Structures are given as C-alpha cells and as structure tokens.
C-alpha cells in the first residue's frame, strides 16, 4: 500500500465484505498524530488473530493481508491498531493511530477520494464521516441525508462525486490533512 488512503479503502472493503450497510468513520489530526476510527454494522467474525496473515474469513485463499499490512504501517510509526467487536449491536470497530512525523510514515494520499470511490464501488452502503477537532465533533458527510437532499438513491454519479470530493478535501485541509504528511 502506497498511502494511508489505500489502507483506509481496504478497511472499508472489509466492512462491506462483512455485509455492513452503514459505516461511520471518525478522523482527527492533532500534533501530527492521525487517528482514525471505523465502525460498521457488519457481522463481526472471529476477531482473534485477524492481524495474523494466515487468518482470514475468506474461502478462496488461506491468507488475508489487509489488516496485517495496516498493522505494519501503523506500528512502523509507533502507532497502534485496535480491532474490537461491538457487543451491544453487531459490528466491528477498527481504530488506528499513525504518527505522521515519523520517518517511516506513509503519505496520506487522497483521503477524500477514498470516500467517493467507496460510494462508487458500493452504492448500497451508507457512510457517515465525522471530524474530531479539539474534542469537538463535526459531521461532514452523511449519505442518508445527502440522498434525501438530492432526492435520489444513487450517489454513484460523477457530478455528485466531484462535488463531494472537493467538499471533503476542503474539510480535511482545515484540520491539516493534505495528500502528503499533513500540515
């Protein structure tokens, strides 16, 4: 994976594979620490040892590399990765921290494009994106609301995607997340 954006997309794909239809992503960037939390309502499979490459829920192959690769990327910067099954409702929470100041940190890449790519790839899944800045949480995208506003179920349209992408890029820049290592 070249960028954190690639990793994030990969983790979203795990959620979709686990039959999630709602994914909530929380992002923050403070003192060069990028923190990301992904909560889905998919089926939480056996979460022990998922960061072991030889553990996967897939049947076509015996290895799964998504989470082990993320773990390596995260830990190379002194950060941590945590995967927790949600007890009350079904689902999984994945949380990771990356020190963007670390010499081994990967660049962010286009995080905004991750979400528009996700809307293009999985039109049936709803996303909510929140930014946490100095303990204040702000919802910057909610596809349920957006579908209502636009009076359509189909957000996989290039005009909508461009609009969302620009909007998200602006919001991310506000907290210092650019496509490199952040401001």
């Amino acid at each position, binding site marked *: 994976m070249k960028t954190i954006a690639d990793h994030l997309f990969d983790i979203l794909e795990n959620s979709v594979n686990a039959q999630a239809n709602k994914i909530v992503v929380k992002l923050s960037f403070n003192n060069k620490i990028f923190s990301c939390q992904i909560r889905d309502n998919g089926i939480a499979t056996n979460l022990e040892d998922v960061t072991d490459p030889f553990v996967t829920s897939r049947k076509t192959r015996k290895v799964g590399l998504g989470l082990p690769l993320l773990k390596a990327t995260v830990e190379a910067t002194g950060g941590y990765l945590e995967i927790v099954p949600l007890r009350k409702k079904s689902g999984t929470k994945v949380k990771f921290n990356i020190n963007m100041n670390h010499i081994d940190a990967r660049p962010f890449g286009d995080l905004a494009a991750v979400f528009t790519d996700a809307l*293009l790839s999985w039109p049936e899944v709803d996303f909510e994106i929140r930014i946490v800045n100095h303990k204040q949480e702000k919802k910057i995208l909610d596809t349920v609301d957006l579908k209502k506003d*636009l009076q359509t179920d189909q957000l996989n349209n290039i005009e909508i995607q461009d609009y969302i992408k620009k909007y998200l890029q602006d919001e991310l820049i506000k907290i210092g997340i650019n496509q490199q290592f952040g401001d």
Partner: protein
Amino acid sequence: MKNLEELKKIREKVRKSLEMRSGDFQVKIVVCLGTCGIAAGARQTMNRFAELIAQSGRTDLIISTTGCAGFCEQEPMIKIQEKGKEPVTYGKVDVQAAEEIFHQHVLQGQVVNQYLFTKGE
C-alpha cells in the same frame, strides 16, 4: 455541504441523467478491489473507467466491483461483461490499459489481446 444552490443544481443534473438511464446495461465493467487490487492501483483504474464512461455520454455502461479473484499477481484485474457474450478478464490493467480496453473493447467490442488474462467465467 448544505450549500443549497449547488445542491439544487446537482439535483437537476442527476435527475436528467437518471431519466436517460435505461436501467438495462450493455457492458458491465467489474473491477477487483481486494487488498491486492487496491495495493496495485485498482482505484485509479476504476476512476479512469468512471471518467471515460461519463465522457462517452453512454448510459448503458456500468461499473461494478468484486473482491480478490485469487490471481493477485495479475492485479489490477477487471472483467468486461458484454450482454449476451462470454465475459473477458484482463490483468495488469493500469490507467493506460484501461483507456485502451475502454476504447477498443467496451465501445467497439474487440478484445485487447495485450492485457487478456482469460475468456469465460
């Protein structure tokens, strides 16, 4: 997000494009988006196809995604499914390959041998 004027404009455009969409597709482009595909740049490939479809103005072309097909060394992999024909799978489809495949195969129905991986399911 709640810039109402902008949203209204987009809404109008979307409505028009939805009205044009026949609901039935002629060609379906399936992009493999497993860990291996993502690492190999499949998102860029998918985005190029989306742009090309938008530019072509065709409303009967759709993009769909799938997971790892088990041939990770061939990623980014895509499958072109023309209605009533056998699907064709391509390997190592970077952005440039995507353009060639779009113009030759998706628009004109000719298989691009250079990137061909397999024919059939």
